[in-house]
């Protein structure tokens, strides 16, 4: 549904590399996650795919249309929700939705089924101006506006950034029901925990794709054994663990530390070492890595 070949992009007369030889394929009907921090190049890629920016190098197709030559056809068949709220602040909810429906030559009624589940949540406020809405409501309105012409592909650029856990969960539930309608979704996020909700993901950093796979596949490719270190006093435990010569990397990770070892070093030896350093309650256990562990490992390579 989306094919990206050797896309490259720089800004500031070549001083800033935004994208570097990016190759990706997104299949029809999948939720594909682009996972990476600010400045990784996610938004640039979205803007190229939605025909708002011409790539310097490479080619890309959305729905078999070329992003440069067939930009008009692409604009008619995709929905785009930019990271920055871009609806008309001085139009009401209903006016915004009507506007976008009209621009795409359709009506709210025609595709109401598609947005119904989302729209009913903001409908009680349909006469309120978009500029006066809360973050969560703006997000839902923006999604409705991106969907109102029944696009084949939906581009969502960091839809959940700065949104609390409960609203994020609701948003992902909405995406799952849209997938059932056959819509292909490319979504970017800086939250690693959302990666597991995608069918496939690409980890991106500094304009390059580090890895593309299913979430399970990414986790499976973690090299070496990961260990969790539990104990009181995170800061001192962290320093003590990093001070152990067999430790290759160690990071705070939720309620534990996650550590990997250099060849030959073992968990029990670290546990004994930490206990000898006054961390009498320290416990070192092998664990399964998560997406974030994999990302950290790829970043450090």
């Amino acid at each position, binding site marked *: 549904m989306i094919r990206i070949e050797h896309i490259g992009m720089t800004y500031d007369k070549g001083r800033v590399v935004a994208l570097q030889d990016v190759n990706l394929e997104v299949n029809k009907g999948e939720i594909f996650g682009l996972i*990476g*921090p*600010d*400045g*990784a190049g996610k938004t640039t890629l979205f803007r190229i795919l939605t025909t708002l920016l011409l790539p310097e190098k490479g080619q890309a197709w959305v729905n078999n249309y070329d992003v440069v030559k067939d930009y008009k056809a692409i604009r008619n068949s995709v929905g785009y929700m930019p990271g920055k709220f871009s609806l008309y602040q001085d139009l009401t909810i209903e006016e915004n939705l009507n506007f976008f429906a009209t621009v795409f030559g359709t009506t709210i009624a025609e595709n109401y089924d598609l947005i119904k589940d989302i729209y009913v949540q903001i409908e009680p406020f349909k006469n309120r101006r978009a500029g006066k809405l*809360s*973050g*969560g*409501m703006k997000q839902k309105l923006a999604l409705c506006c991106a969907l109102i012409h029944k696009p084949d592909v939906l581009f969502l650029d960091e839809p959940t*950034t*700065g*949104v*609390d*856990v*409960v*609203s994020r*969960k609701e948003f992902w539930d909405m995406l799952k029901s849209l997938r059932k309608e056959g819509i292909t979704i490319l979504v970017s996020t*800086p*939250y*690693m*925990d959302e990666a597991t909700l995608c069918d496939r993901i690409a980890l991106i*950093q500094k304009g390059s794709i580090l890895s593309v796979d299913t979430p399970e596949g990414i986790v499976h490719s973690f090299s070496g054994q990961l260990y969790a270190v539990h104990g009181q006093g*995170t*800061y001192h435990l*962290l320093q003590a663990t990093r001070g152990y010569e067999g430790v290759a990397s160690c*990071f*705070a*990770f*939720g*309620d534990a530390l996650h550590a990997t070892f250099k060849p030959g070093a073992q968990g029990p030896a670290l546990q004994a070492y930490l206990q000898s350093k006054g961390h009498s309650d320290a416990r070192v256990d092998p664990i399964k890595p998560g997406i*974030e562990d994999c*990302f*950290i490992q790829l*970043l*450090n390579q």
Partner: protein
Amino acid sequence: MNTEAVIVTDKLTKRFGPFIACNELTFQVDKGEIFGFLGANGAGKTTAMRMLCGLLNPSSGKATVAGFDVYTQANRIKQRIGYMSQRFSLYDDLTVSENIRFFGGIYGMSISDIKKKTSALLSELQLEKEAKTLVRDIPPGWKQKLAFSVSIVHGPDIVFLDEPTGGVDPVTRRQFWDLIYEAADKGVTVFVTTHYMDEAEYCNRVSIMVDGVIADLDAPARLKTKYQVSSMEEVFYALARNAVRKAD
């Protein structure tokens, strides 16, 4: 843990007309503690934080920050705290050392103190070579670490961090937390809001606000035991799921 309290509130309340943004917040934060201040969007976190920073007068209730009263000594409070948020931290069109000088000056430090602190800070962050680089030209991760260091440049009692780590890569996020641990270890109290629930685990204690009230407050491990779940995300979900307010 040192039990000297640096933030004490008693039924701290803020109304905007009929709307009660913060309803009788009563809690205390101890010296050197990393205190997580969590809540759903619209729960009242920002309002509470603004009152504690001396930027907004409460409607009723009491609060002292670093020993000063939020009603009558707001200016004294501002001198004893640091503040950093993801949205606003440093000036992009000033260089690294100009930013340090600017914020040092704002916080009332003397020229000679600022000079000493600038070179110490640059070497700590290994930014000596970037002293004359505009902040807009340094990588986002460095910027964030610099912003944090700048927010505590004047040696405050408390630093307020409002979603400090949004959008940075996982390695930088952890390096940032290393700085937080280090500051707390030196006795700076850290008051932090975040949407990353793994970061909630790094706090000594967390409070979770729902619809203007503190729904619960305790050490992460105790909260998980209480709600019989295995992560802070689930604790948050259990408490905030039924929130009525969903504003920002």
